[in-house]
């Protein structure tokens, strides 16, 4: 009843792999998030956007999962950004230091424009 499933959806726009995270990012989300990351990495995607919804619940276990993604993104020479975080979780991402490794954008469109400047569109 309370083990809410996270829905993970992968899309591609303008040379960016967008991973939509719809639901809660807690310990239950680990396999789905890591699976989505492995999938886009196997395709050779270099620009990755984690697109959250405003009202989600992200706890410290979820933060640990995201730090795991950042670790691999750095090792694989990819670029990671996040969008759609509520002001509270933007603050937490800054406190933890995640914002230094994954640029925070308010919206998907803003993130795509920034990726374009980094060369996501050939």
């Amino acid at each position, binding site marked *: 009843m309370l*083990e809410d499933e996270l829905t993970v959806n992968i899309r591609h726009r303008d040379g960016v792999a967008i991973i939509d995270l719809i639901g809660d990012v807690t310990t239950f989300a680990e396999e789905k998030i890591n699976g989505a990351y492995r999938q886009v990495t196997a395709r050779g995607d270099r620009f990755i956007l984690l697109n959250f919804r405003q009202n989600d619940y992200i706890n*410290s276990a979820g933060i*640990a999962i995201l730090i795991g993604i950042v*670790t691999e993104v750095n090792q694989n020479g990819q670029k990671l950004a996040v969008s759609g975080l509520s002001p*509270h979780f933007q603050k937490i991402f800054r406190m933890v230091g995640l914002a230094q490794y994954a640029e925070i954008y308010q919206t998907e469109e803003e993130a795509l424009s920034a990726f374009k400047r980094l060369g996501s569109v050939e």
Partner: protein
Amino acid sequence: MSDAEGAAEQLIELRLPSRLGYERIAMDTAAALARRMGFANDRIDALRTAIGEAVTNAIEHGNQADAAMKVVVVLTVRPDELIISVSDQGRKALEIEQTKTRPHITDAFQRADKGGWGIWLMRELMDEVEFTLAPGGGNQVRMVVHLERSPVRDQ
């Protein structure tokens, strides 16, 4: 109404099974209470995160996720603050050192276990955080969040 009745009305107690996900009941209850007390939205978000971490710790560590063991959450409403106490049954005691760590993301990159942010977040987000032993011998954390008033009125 007697003083005792008045005081009793200001206490809300939840007894939750030690199963991950039930921390959400405590988060929702505390948030509803804080909203009625007049807390700003950003403080309510901070409270949700802090209480979620406290209850998750109690479930996973203190009670070792044994669903038969209870996590007790007591919310005490005072005119100018909300006090949140979370206790477990202490199957595993919390080491005091664990309650004082300041994790760094660059260290986490090197470790297989990238967690350990919960208690630090609680300390950062709440006005007061204190770890003690629960009356029954388990771990207990007491957190306080102050209702902010205008500086003029405080004088």
